[in-house]
């Protein structure tokens, strides 16, 4: 068995046996890592508190056949402000779920890791309601499936763009319209997010279309992952239980 060190963000934990947990982490060098943390559910454990979801840690692991064994953990950022505020926790959990679904085990994913870490840092300090939306749209770009947002995805005309359909690959003009109707402000915000203007958008305070931009991002990400995101459709999220981005 090989020993390795990497940093990671805890995505989820699952109980194992009497006092252990299986911890899933996103790492830059080893992609998604699933490791057993032994005895962490006991109150005596020194590393249990460090392996809670949202924790940004460095760790030492033994490589196993299926599951690695996590032996040492140091916390870099606990993101307490996200854990202690329900309005921030909901979006943070959605980010973790997206990273969990998109990353493959033992395939380096430095871009996805950097995106997730940056988004959690921004969410913990920013009051903007567009942080999750920014993460979702940037995630599509990192995955290489960025939607066409500067012209009509079907005919290529410059617009005006009035609808969004992830199946067509992006925004659509009046003639090709199908899918979701979208406002002019939403189109502008998405164009800026994907055009390198995310920081500027986040610094502007609340826009009337923030919810729509997030909903469209969620729609596109769910289509890309080919699954419904559980964390985005529960009462801790703005869409509420049983709601849908569609």
């Amino acid at each position, binding site marked *: 068995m090989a020993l390795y060190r990497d940093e990671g963000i805890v995505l*989820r934990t699952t109980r194992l046996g009497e006092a252990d947990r299986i911890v899933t982490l996103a790492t830059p060098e080893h992609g998604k890592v699933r490791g057993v943390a032994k005895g962490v559910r006991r109150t005596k454990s020194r590393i249990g508190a460090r392996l809670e979801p949202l924790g940004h840690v460095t760790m030492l692991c033994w490589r196993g056949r299926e599951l690695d064994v996590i032996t040492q953990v140091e916390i870099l950022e606990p993101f307490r402000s996200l854990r202690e505020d329900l309005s921030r926790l909901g979006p943070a959990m959605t980010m973790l779920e997206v990273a969990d679904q998109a990353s493959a085990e033992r395939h380096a994913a430095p871009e996805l890791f950097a995106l997730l870490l940056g988004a959690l840092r921004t969410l913990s300090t920013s009051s903007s309601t567009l942080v999750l939306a920014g993460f979702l749209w940037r995630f599509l770009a990192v995955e290489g499936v960025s939607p066409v947002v500067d012209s009509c995805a079907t005919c290529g005309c410059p617009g005006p763009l009035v609808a969004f359909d992830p199946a067509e690959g992006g925004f659509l003009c009046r003639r090709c319209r199908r899918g979701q109707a979208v406002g002019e402000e939403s189109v502008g915000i998405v164009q800026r997010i994907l055009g390198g203007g995310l920081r500027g958008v986040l610094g502007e305070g609340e826009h009337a279309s923030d919810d729509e931009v997030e909903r469209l991002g969620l729609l596109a990400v769910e289509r890309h992952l080919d699954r419904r995101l559980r964390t985005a459709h529960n009462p801790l999220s703005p869409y509420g239980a049983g709601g849908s981005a569609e």
Partner: protein
Amino acid sequence: MTKEDANRLARAIVEVKERTTICRTCFNVGVGERCAICADERRDPTVVCVVEDPRDIVAIERTREFRGRYHVLGGALSPIEGVGPDQLRIKELLRRIEPERVKEVILCTNPNLEGETTAMYLAKQLAPLGLRVTRIASGLPVGGDLEYADELTLGRALEGRREVQP
């Protein structure tokens, strides 16, 4: 194991299965409609300790510090696992507040992300009812050495420090 021991064990398992019930008031494990704690008139009905699991009641009872009653949620909120408020006995807790004249609810869920999320959610739901809502403290295990404590637990212990009366 002798044949007689095996039969005794089998009979004990069948008896447990046949006799144990879930308390209709607090959802603890018991015998009959109400568990021993809910049926005990000496216990204070105005203080309710909310726990995730009946096993947590056993742990709290071992302290011999708590003389109120309990409410078992049956788990904790976990958005990533798809566990929402409807899967927990939150409505049942809210229904108990008025008829039982509850004055304090102690949120005694696990000190992990799911437990903390559940406590925050419950605090929000209970706030309009005008009662005292408290959360168990987090800190260092008694008998342990400070130098071996992890930084998160030690940080919370410092945050929750209290004045020492001379």
